[in-house]
């Protein structure tokens, strides 16, 4: 099967746009995850301060619980971000 020049160009163009589309999607995810992770980091710091300042035992336990959740979320977020970046590089 012979490929003429214009067909080759067309196919390459299609392939390029396909690759770019995927890259664009990854970039989009990267941006979103980074922003949320920054917010979570801030929230974790804030919660840590609140826990340290809280005298009421029950209240402190609740805050600690929330802190654990935020911590788990951050851990998950970081894992997701590194996976996205890995995919982007490959």
């Amino acid at each position: 099967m012979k490929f003429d020049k214009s067909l080759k160009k067309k196919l390459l163009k299609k392939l390029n746009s396909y690759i770019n589309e995927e890259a664009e999607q990854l970039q989009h995810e990267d941006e979103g995850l980074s922003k949320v992770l920054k917010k979570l980091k801030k929230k974790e710091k804030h919660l840590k301060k609140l826990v340290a300042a809280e005298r009421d035992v029950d209240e402190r336990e609740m805050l600690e619980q929330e802190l654990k959740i935020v911590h788990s979320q951050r851990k998950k977020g970081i894992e997701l971000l590194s996976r996205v970046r890995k995919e982007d590089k490959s």
Partner: protein
Amino acid sequence: MGNTLRKVILPSILLILAYGFWISPDFKEISAGVAIFLFGMLALEEGFKAFTGGVLEKILKKTTNRLWKSVSFGVVSTTIMQSSSLVSVITISFLGAGLIGLSQGIGIIFGANLGTTTGAWLVAGFGLKVKISAYAMPMLVFGVIMIFQKSRHLKGLGYILAGLGFLFLGIHHMKEGFETFKSAIDLAEYAVAGYPGLFLFTLIGIFATVVMQSSHATLVLIITALAAQQISYENALALAIGANVGTTITAILGALSSNEVGKRLAGAHLIFNVTTGLIAIVFIHQLLVAVDVISAYVGIGETDYTLKLALFHTLFNLIGIAVMIPFTSHLVRFLERLIKSEPDHYAQPKYLNESALEFGDAGLEALRMETARVYAKATDIIAKGLSLEKEEIFSGTKLKKVIQVRGKAVQYDIDDVYEHEIKSLCSAILDYTNKLSSAEPGIARKVSRIRVANQSILTALKDVKHLQKNMLQYIESDNPDISSEYNRLRQRIAKVMRRLEKIRRKGSGSTSILSLDALKLTLEKNMALLHERMNALIRDGNISADMAISLMNDSNYTYSIINNLIRINRNYLKSEEGAETEAEHMIALNSDEIDSVLTGNDDNAEKR
């Protein structure tokens, strides 16, 4: 009263018919012709119904934005379908759906009145001159074969063919009946001349149409009787006027069970046809001259009374339209004043407009706003279902205190409120999501989330209804253990509602979707605590087995309510945003991850 009248009228008609069949076989043939004709019309309607829901609606939408267009639509559609009643029914359904206004609806009805006169032309010009039954038989055979097919459209086509076949067969039998009838009795002897005859035969025409529920059938009967010279030309004209007025009775009967829009349309139908009838009676002589002049001009024979009748029928309806069209807006205002809208007992969507559908984002925003509205209503119902007030739940007052103050069970009919406040809105939202689903994948995903949120609202409300049943009984119980457990369930739901409200108020700047994970953790933890406590209560004999079963079921309902409240917020919070919302959804912990956080926790969740 109406029912009693119906109970008397129906057997009387059947008896009269049976007596008529017994004394005259010709009468039997004519009646069978009418019956077959009416059956044909039913089949025709059935057939056209298969084609509605698509093409017809599309045409209707595009062709009714001007009065002349809607009149033309009425003429054309009724000519094709040969049934003004089907066109009226479709018009009423479109009016009800708000797709067309009353003036457009009236335009279609005006047009349908003119369109229905084409039936007279077909029968007078074609049906009586050709051996019509020859066409009927193959149509019936092909039609019935097609009716047995699986495809909806083939089936519809089958019904149309069979319907036309029955129409032709009916006309054939009426014609045959009248021709032989003529040799036995000459009805023409009973012809009454002058205005008394005009009024008498108009009344007979009205009566015949009310009985047969079809002006089309009456008119065919008149034409065949006229062709067989069983009635005089003048009396046939009066019968045609009567048929035109009588047909509105069908619409009025149909509109009795309809909403005010349908009633207004039936009112317009009645006013139009009565006015047209009056004009025809008052100017009968002038009309007859006009018919003669036009007949001579278009080449209709002087004694061809059947075609002249068709012409008369068309002419007086045309005059009716010409007279009534300038008053359409007055008619609309008059009907709106006369038939007032009942106070709206059912909530109507506020944001879901059709134009927003053209733009995915606008449509999505409309959906979010409407869902927020339903959620606000739903939280009010949940609060009242728990014998609490939403404002108190969302206030800064300690919830324990709120529950204490509201210690008395308050009866609240959740079903009734659901029916009037929620159901119509949720179905409108779901309908809207279906229309938006075809948009780009990103929007489709968000739309699907909103759909899930709405489903969760419905589930939460259903659960509150179940919970309410025992809760109303137990919060005031003499047994302090069961009453305090039920108050705890109330408090738990109220606490989540308050928390969710706080998260919602924080707005888009925060990681609101992720904040819901902490709530989920608390939910799981509290559930485990409740089970422990419940076991202790049963073991120590503090609550009866019945109470324990109720509590077990209701704690599950509570779990489901809270879970659904969280799910609602998770699915519709910030659904308008892009990358960040998606990232939050990706990071949000699933139940296994929540469990693993939980196992590392000690238990003190309920103390807060």
